[in-house]
């Protein structure tokens, strides 16, 4: 990995100036392209096709017809500049092409050239340009420096969604044989094995048995981690990182304890052993559909009545916003729970009804803050009230710990910053971008660590947890600060009869 400088954190987040412009500062950083086998497994050409310009423009035309929103976003920017200093990657790198407006313009300029009369007639004067090899390389570089977190769209007076533009760009590139290794290899593994990790059923079963032993040793309670149990009431669909990584697995143990204490029968599925749907990151409806239908198939095969999603940010966006279209109708589920639920809705509901109780002393000494995950914050909801996706996690945390504090208001709720690794960028070849892109969140964390003595930062997304574990030490924070929300639940929940 090439050396790079970690940006210094702000002394005062309220008075910090935007970074000095550093043109092309990130032009060198290109994520690894997918090998032909990774592309072909998804039905894309193995490598750049000969008539790629023609095919790319044809695909762009198709997307403009299919997604009216895309054309509106490409037409409606007035260059007001509201988005310019809102992207974490711009704030962390100073590269003007990481300003959302500039990122959009990479595609917009080509759209103008081929699809608008002014662009066809006036060319550069109308901000239009031909799709050349250099432009394609720019697309590849900078559309893989967007985590599709949609923070910029919160500030855009027209609501232009850069994520949708970046998804379209990636879809066009896949279509001509220029895919990204990280995302495409992973989607292929889901089709073949059932999860992002490539964890086969025997390894999953072995891992779950180990967790049962661990929890029994630690608590004396026989908490089960059932796999492929037909007739269970709940199917839990969770990111495969929950089986594999720290602190993710501590969250999984928390879910299991909640189900145990609630007396609800539940199961995991080896067929749908993944909540994530990376097909969203590459903008492919067909691939999203295929991945999502593994969940439908598992639910039908196991005869479950409810589907609950574990802590995964973009999976919850897919589940909340798209699952009915992608894999519905869910008419075979319990009519009281007609749509997939978030594990936090499940835990919160039980907590409010007194079905589970917490002992805050189990988390004594902790001062906890929460990083809102971008997809949960800006693309979903929880419970039946607006803003539930902010309130419900915080209410559960507060019930489990002695002290909770929020970070700066410009960095939480719908204004939350991306962790720096979302949208298919959680890959080692983009480490420089990941470290620099985490800066805005680290600035806000530093403030509450210094002011309030924060000891733990909770995340509810597998990507956020892995990203922070990796990059926080670069900013002088201990990786152990990163905490799964259900890790707090796991420690605080009272187990056993009469608890």
């Amino acid at each position: 990995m090439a050396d790079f400088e970690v940006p210094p954190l702000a002394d005062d987040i309220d008075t910090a100036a935007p970074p000095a412009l550093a043109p092309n500062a990130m032009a060198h950083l290109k994520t690894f392209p997918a090998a032909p086998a990774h592309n072909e497994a998804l039905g894309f050409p193995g490598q750049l096709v000969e008539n790629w310009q023609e095919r790319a423009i044809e695909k762009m035309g198709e997307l403009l017809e299919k997604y009216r929103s895309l054309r509106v976003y490409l037409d409606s920017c007035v260059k007001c500049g509201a988005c310019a200093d809102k992207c974490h990657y711009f704030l962390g790198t100073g590269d003007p092409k990481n300003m959302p407006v500039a990122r959009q313009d990479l595609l917009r300029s080509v759209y103008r050239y081929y699809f608008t009369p002014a662009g066809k007639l006036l060319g550069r004067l109308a901000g239009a340009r031909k799709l050349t090899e250099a432009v394609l390389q720019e697309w590849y570089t900078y559309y893989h420096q967007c985590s599709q977190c949609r923070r910029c769209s919160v500030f855009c007076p027209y609501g232009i969604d850069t994520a949708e533009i970046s998804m379209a760009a990636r879809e066009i590139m896949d279509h001509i044989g220029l895919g990204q290794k990280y995302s495409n290899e992973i989607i292929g593994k889901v089709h073949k094995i059932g999860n992002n990790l490539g964890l086969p059923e025997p390894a999953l079963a072995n891992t779950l048995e180990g967790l049962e032993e661990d929890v029994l040793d630690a608590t004396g309670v026989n908490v089960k981690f059932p796999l492929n149990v037909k007739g269970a009431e709940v199917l839990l669909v969770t990111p495969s990182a929950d089986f594999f990584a720290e602190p993710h697995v501590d969250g999984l143990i928390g879910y299991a304890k909640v189900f145990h204490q609630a007396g609800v029968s539940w199961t995991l599925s080896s067929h749908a052993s993944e909540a994530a749907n990376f097909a969203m990151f590459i903008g492919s409806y067909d691939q999203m559909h295929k991945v999502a239908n593994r969940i439908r198939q598992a639910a039908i095969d196991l005869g479950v009545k409810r589907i609950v999603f574990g802590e995964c940010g973009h999976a919850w966006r897919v589940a909340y916003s798209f699952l009915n279209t992608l894999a519905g109708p869910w008419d075979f589920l319990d009519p009281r729970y007609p749509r997939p639920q978030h594990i936090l809705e499940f835990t919160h509901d039980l907590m409010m009804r007194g079905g589970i109780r917490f002992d805050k002393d189990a988390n004594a000494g902790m001062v906890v803050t929460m990083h809102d995950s971008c997809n949960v914050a800006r693309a979903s909801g929880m419970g039946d009230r607006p803003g539930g996706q902010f309130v419900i996690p915080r209410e559960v945390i507060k019930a489990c710990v002695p002290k909770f504090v929020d970070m700066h208001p410009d960095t939480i709720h719908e204004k939350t910053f991306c962790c720096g690794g979302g949208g298919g960028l959680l890959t080692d070849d983009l480490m420089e971008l990941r470290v620099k892109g985490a800066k805005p969140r680290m600035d806000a964390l530093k403030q509450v660590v210094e002011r309030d003595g924060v000891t733990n930062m909770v995340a509810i997304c597998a990507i956020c947890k892995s990203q922070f574990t990796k990059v926080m030490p670069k900013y002088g924070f201990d990786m152990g600060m990163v905490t799964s929300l259900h890790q707090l639940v796991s420690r605080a929940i009272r187990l056993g009869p009469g608890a």
Partner: protein
Amino acid sequence: MSYQVGGKTVEHDEEGYLVDIGQWSEDVAVMIAEAEKLPLSSEHWEVIHFLREYYTEYQIAPAIRVLTKALTKKMGEAKGNNKYLYELFPYGPAKQACKIAGLPKPTGCV
């Protein structure tokens, strides 16, 4: 992209993971570790051998917890934890240890 080990050429990918895991040997491990600027101690070898045994049985690297539990049994509580694993493999036990043990890179949200 390849390692040169005892006159033999061993192919690796962009990040240094072996293309053909069948080409692994202890000499190859030493070579990969050198490329990572990581001198190998007996503790490193314990981890490497456990990873390979587990992979042979399950076709995947063990979860961190499975690994720490196995190490606790072999080396005691003080060394059977994630923190110690990061001391051994500063770039992360899953990825760096897998690379040296000749296993594929764990993918996904890890």
